[in-house]
């Protein structure tokens, strides 16, 4: 977690990095952040936590008829990814063809353009996921 960054700043950038909450009473992690831990209720001790963007594909669908703003990206993959730390995230899977995605596939977070509002509006960025690189690929 960023040292000394005020809560306000972490909130505004939560779409750029995966911030969730962790309950210090039971160790459960939640994304998106919650106000209360459903297991501990009044004994909840929630704190912000930056989640590690690694996980696996729990289920997916290939979008061929996209909502407004996403038409030019079809076909693309939307998936529910189960993070290694527990929480589930709905996300686009990139760098992967529709016939390459599989349930259980290891994925990692990546920073991409999410949407552009028209030709002259703002560009929205955020996290998506892609097939994970094997650790051996990190070596030269």
């Amino acid at each position, binding site marked *: 977690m960023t040292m000394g960054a005020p809560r306000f700043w972490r909130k505004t950038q939560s779409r750029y*990095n995966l911030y969730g909450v962790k309950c210090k009473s039971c160790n459960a992690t939640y994304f998106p952040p919650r106000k209360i831990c459903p297991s501990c209720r009044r004994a909840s001790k929630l704190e912000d936590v930056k989640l590690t963007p690694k996980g696996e594909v729990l289920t997916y669908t290939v979008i061929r008829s996209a909502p407004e703003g996403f038409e030019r990206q079809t076909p693309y993959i939307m998936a529910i990814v189960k993070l290694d730390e527990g929480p589930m995230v709905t996300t686009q899977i990139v760098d992967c063809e529709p016939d390459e995605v599989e349930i259980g596939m290891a994925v990692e977070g990546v920073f991409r353009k999410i949407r552009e509002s028209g030709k002259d509006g703002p560009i929205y960025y955020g996290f998506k996921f892609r097939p994970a690189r094997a650790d051996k690929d990190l*070596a030269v």
Partner: protein
Amino acid sequence: MRPLTVGICGYGVYIPRLRIRAEEIARIWGGDGEKIKKGLLIEEKAVADFDEDTATIATEAARNALKMAGIEPAAVGAIYVGSESHPYAVKPTATIVAEAIEAAPVMTAADYEFACKAGTAAIQTCMGLVGSGMIEYGLAIGADTAQGAPGDALEYTAASGGAAYLIGKKGLIAEIEDTYSVTTDTPDFWRREGEPYPRHGGRFTGSPAYFKHVLSATLGLMKKIGAAPEDFDHAVFHQPNGKFPRNAAKNLGFTDRQLKEGILVDRIGNTYSGSSLLGLARVLDVAKPGERILVTAFGSGAGSDSFSIRVTEEIEKRRGRAPAVETYISDRRYIDYGTYVKLRRKIKVAE
């Protein structure tokens, strides 16, 4: 001796996964693929996907640089992003990167433009800020999603990619021994505001632009530090195609062996602001402690920044924390020209 030792604490790269082969572009425009490949010494180029741009490329490169350096992002006091393809005409790319790597808000940031050498200009700025003690660490990034007009010779080389360098004084993987620049007002290549594609002065881009600046900056640096070509283990020159850097090297007295590790243009194209910085990263991926690297960037308009860099022992401990250049180059998928024009928005669609 120079009063200040500044250098590189970490570097990171990003090269998009999509590639288009020179033959595929030649197929559409009736060119002779083999002749073009031989003329430009290029096989294929890297193409940004639909949801990638200079900000996303710069962000992944920056995250990799921080991973290698192993420092808290809040310790980054400045971010400069050099590019000629910033996503917005007005609204800095550096702010997006700063937020995405969590270096914001207590820091300074700006975008740079100087054709293909905006990234090395960012390194020089960070050297000054770090050297003077104004900041502890500065992040200098060169990234582009370069475009050539359909059918133009530039379309064979204009590519996407980038590299980020964390500049500081502590924990250096390489010292920057010195830097030397040459700048003139030369109309060899330009793009007017609002125009989608650049124009170039044809033959004018060779002798009076690229070679004049690359040679004089490199010679100027070597004279300043009292070095000769044989004092360097590696040399990296800006790579608009495969021929220019080889000719520049030969002219200056550098050998093919010195050039070998840093030449990437044949496999990824000209990544503009990323070009010489990716070449340097490829060298740093394999360089041994004590080795000396010469880097000379070139930007049309025109100017060259030359650097002498010496690798430290520390580099061997930091390797493997982030993907190497070869990792990104070997992870690739080929696309056809139709997909290419769709992704790079070269076709008009109904709104």
